[in-house]
Each structure stands twice: as structure tokens, then as C-alpha cells.
């Protein structure tokens, strides 16, 4: 994962994240409903200094409808709703401060399910259309942010602004295969860009491994 925050003087922090996600999915040949929440984070580094990122995503909700029911390959379309908190701390570059990128987004989801031999190839694209976003103030108090949990929660939800996809872009591309009835593996590319002040960019390449507690049928993740 790469993070480029306007507060970080043009430097890019790079490092791995580990994210754990739990959820449930209801699907049939015509519809897919998916809810999940996830927690994760990891260390990032630049200039031999460390930063840390925590990702809390309480809501990832999507509903998609098969718009090609007669076709062997299925195309699902539908809305998605996201609630994402990405909190960063850079002890040496910004002592005493938290940075964050919060978004509440309504997104469009496009999912293609293509039978390939005995497996299904899933190609999914999700992009935020309209969002409420929160970032720290550009001219922020140069002194410490409070470390109280209540203050942190208030801060990461402060100064929420409405943003179209021109101002805030959150796009996920996922390409994956089912590995039997209970497992799924995908490569995911995610790009987040907040072009307003202060700017924020995040790029991640991820491997996503899903384990289904029930047989999934291999139609979709």
C-alpha cells in the first residue's frame, strides 16, 4: 500500500496492510446482497521513518442485479454503500497528530461472472459516485490532537463535506477465481484520491482470500 498525504511534504509512505473482513452474502442467479465489515492496518515507511495506518470499515453494503439473466456469463449491476475510516499516525513526521481519510460513499458496482472451464472468473469494479468525506484541516493547530477515544471519533467525523467523484475517487478493481465451493482468491487494486485540500492519495495492491462457512456455489464472492 502507498499513502501520499499532502501533510507529508510530497513523500509517499509504503508498507503492507493486513485486513480481516467478516460478512455475509445472500445470492441467487439473479441477485447478490453482500454486507461486510473489516479491520486492519499496518506500518508504512519513508525516509527510514515509520507511520502507521488503521483501517476501520464498519459498513460495506452492496446489492446487485443480474442484468443478463439469459446469458451464460452474468453481468450484475447495483449500488454499494461504504463507511470507511483510514487513520494514520506518523510519529516522526508529525509528532502529536493524527491524519485521516474518512468517507461515507454511495457507489456503483459492476460485477462480471464469466465461466472459465470449471471455474468462474469474477471481475468486479466499484467506484464511488457521491461521498461525504472528512480530512484534517489544512491550517490545523500545530499542537497535539487529543488522544482520547471520544475526541478521535469526533475528529475523524469532523468537517464532513459533500464530494462528487470529481473530488473524491474511490475505485476498486477485483479479479478473482473461486477455489472450490468454499474459497475464493482475488487480486484487488484500489485507488483513493481526495483532490480537495488537503489532498490524499492511496494506492493498494492486495490479495484477497475469502473463506465461506457454507458452500458458496462459486457464482460470486
Amino acid at each position, binding site marked *: 500500500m502507498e499513502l*501520499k498525504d499532502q501533510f507529508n*511534504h510530497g513523500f509517499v509512505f509504503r508498507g503492507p496492510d493486513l485486513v480481516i473482513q467478516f460478512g455475509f452474502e445472500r445470492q441467487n442467479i439473479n441477485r447478490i446482497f453482500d454486507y461486510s465489515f473489516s479491520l486492519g492496518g499496518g506500518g508504512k515507511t519513508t525516509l527510514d521513518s515509520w507511520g502507521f495506518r488503521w483501517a476501520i470499515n464498519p459498513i460495506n453494503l452492496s446489492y446487485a442485479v443480474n442484468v443478463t439473466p439469459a446469458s451464460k456469463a452474468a453481468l450484475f449491476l447495483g449500488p454499494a454503500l461504504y463507511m470507511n475510516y483510514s487513520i494514520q499516525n506518523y510519529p*516522526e513526521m508529525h*509528532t502529536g497528530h493524527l491524519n485521516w481519510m474518512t468517507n461515507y460513499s454511495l457507489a456503483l458496482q459492476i460485477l462480471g461472472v464469466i465461466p472459465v472451464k470449471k471455474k468462474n472468473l469474477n471481475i468486479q469494479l466499484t467506484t464511488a459516485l457521491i461521498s461525504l468525506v472528512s480530512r484534517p484541516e489544512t491550517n490545523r493547530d*500545530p499542537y497535539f490532537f487529543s488522544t482520547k477515544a471520544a475526541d478521535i471519533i469526533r475528529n475523524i467525523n469532523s468537517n464532513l463535506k459533500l464530494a462528487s467523484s470529481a473530488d473524491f475517487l474511490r475505485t476498486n478493481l477485483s479479479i478473482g477465481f473461486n477455489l472450490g465451493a468454499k474459497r475464493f482468491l482475488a487480486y484487488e*487494486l484500489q485507488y483513493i484520491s481526495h483532490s480537495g485540500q488537503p489532498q490524499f492519495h492511496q494506492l493498494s495492491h492486495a490479495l484477497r482470500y475469502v473463506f465461506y462457512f457454507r458452500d458458496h456455489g462459486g457464482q460470486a464472492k
Partner: protein
Amino acid sequence: MKRLFPLMCLFFFAGCLLEDKALLPFESFQPTDINDGWEVSTPGSENIDETTLTQIFEDVHADEDLWQLRSLLVFRNGKLVAESYLKDAEDQTSQHAIWSCTKQVLAVLVGIALEQGHIKSIGDPISDYLEEVQNGNEDKAGITLENLLTMRSGINFNETDDSSQLLQKKPKNTLQYILNIPLINEPGEVFQYNSGNSHLIAASIQNAVGKPTDEWADDVLFSQIGFSNYNWLRYDNYTFGGWGISTTPRELARVAHLVMNRGAWNGTQLVDSLWIDQMISPHILDAGSFEEDTFTGSLQFGYHWWIQPELEAYFMSGSGGQYAVIVPAKSLVVVGFSEHDTDDDLELSSDQFLGIVGRIEDAAG
């Protein structure tokens, strides 16, 4: 799957965020006249080798190890001869936290408070000015203002942890918080730099003059030297002495020139010259040393002022890399502000800035 693997690799390596250059490329250090009272000049007119100075500024702008630096100004003979803003031209007039450079400003104010009789002597115990000492902190009764000025109060204020508490405004009574910290040494014995000492000085001045120190400072000093584009924080109604001033490089240079001119400003003696001499004389002979590629030398401490013997300089220093260095023998003042939230290895260090000053000093005939 086999056919998709190369495509996945392509995606993996194709996506990368590009870093920006931390510093703007060097174009010119020609100062601009912004009608703030500073006379602008050229290096040649003030007997500074312009070619060498140009090379210094080019090197600074190109040095990735100086990415924190936001401004670099050179004054000679009371005139601004070089000025560069390495990240944002607005830094010329935007207020910037100078952190512990506030301590050096405070020390100048002590001299004025003495001269005006608000403080009788720096040998006075702080109990004469802080009633909290008489009411529950009697262990601090032996601390004098001189002990505070030389960072030898003996109060075990941890510059990292206790400063964090104050920065988060956790104690409701900042003064009481500092006075409640135990003594670790007898007053006057051990040098331990900390912002708690400075705040006790500021509070003593405030109680002595009968108004917030920042207001009184404006009356007796700032308004007299044209120091107007600033802000000074208060913590529970006390002007904070350890940090708190935000200002511009050109404004801070006024205080530096006042000190370089032994307390005189435009022909008027605003601060007793004898106090200035005491303030910049080494009272702590061994306050540290530098043995770096950028600079090698020793560090001494006066009354809240840092002294660098090898450069024959004394200077103001603030967290993150805020500096105003005075080389009186060459009538030279060099001011530099840096990103102020940095810490530890990412901070622009004193040796880095003194290395730049050393090169400028050599260029000044």
C-alpha cells in the same frame, strides 16, 4: 488462470504513487521590499561574496537532507540581503510556530522586567512571584529566577512526556502541574533543559507586571521594534513561556537584531545592554556538542540563549528546526524556519543549520 497471471503482474507494477520534490528549485534570493521596515540590499553591497552565497542557496535547495527547510534569510549590517522560501512563497508573511525560540524572546523580556523594577533581581526566589510556591510547593522555594534562566531549577520536567501533557492541555492548571513535579536535583546544580522552567519565568513576569506577559511584551518591546505579525498562546490565562509564539522569519529577525545591537533599536536603548551581555554569556559551559559531517563544535548556554563558540555565534532554537543565528563580529543574522511537527531523526538539526551558517559566515568578508 495462466493467461491472467501476466495481466495481474502488469497491474501490480503499473500502479505507483509518485513522490513530489520536497523543495522548490532555486531561482533567486533577491529580497522583496514588502514595506515592513526592513531595508533590502544585495550581498555585494554588504561585502558578502555573491557567487559563494548563490552556491550556498543552490546547494540548500537541492539538498534532500534539508527537505524540512521552509525559509532561509540572511541579514547583514541590519539589511536583508538574501531571502528564499523553499516550499511556499506565502511563508514570507504567514505565521509559523517557532516553538522554543519563544524562550529566547522571553529572556529578553526578563531584562526589561528587571530594568523596570518589576523583578528586583534574578537572584530572587520564585516564591516572591508565585504564590503557589508558598501554598503547597514549598520544596520549590529555593529556586531562583537565575536557576530557571540557566535551566538548573532541579525540577524533573520531562521535555517529551510533560510537554505532551501540556500540549494536549490535559492539566487544568499548567502552573500547578509544573510546580507539582518533584525535584530531582538541588536548584542550581544540574543543567536540564526543559520548558517547565521557562513557563515559571513567564508566570513570574506576568504576576510581577500585573498583566499577561504577551500583552506586556507588546507594550514594552514588540510595538517598539515593529514586531506585529505574531501570536502568543496562553495556557489557562498564563502566557506560555516554553513555546507559543507563531510569527514570520522577518519578524523574528527583529528580535535577533535587537540582541545583536545589545538591546538598541534605531538608536533607542530598549533593553539594558548589560543584561544582553549577561544573557548571551555562557553560564553553562558544556551544554552539548556536535560531531557531524555537517558541523562540528560545542554548545554552551546563557540565560536561555544558546551559544556556539566555534562560529562565535549565539542563537535561538525551536523544535523542528526554527533558528535565528547571530554572528555579531560579522554583523550577520541568519534565520531559517522548518516544518515544525517533525521529531527525532526527521527534525532539521542544529548541526545542519549551523553548517549552513558557517558557510555563509565564511562568505561574509
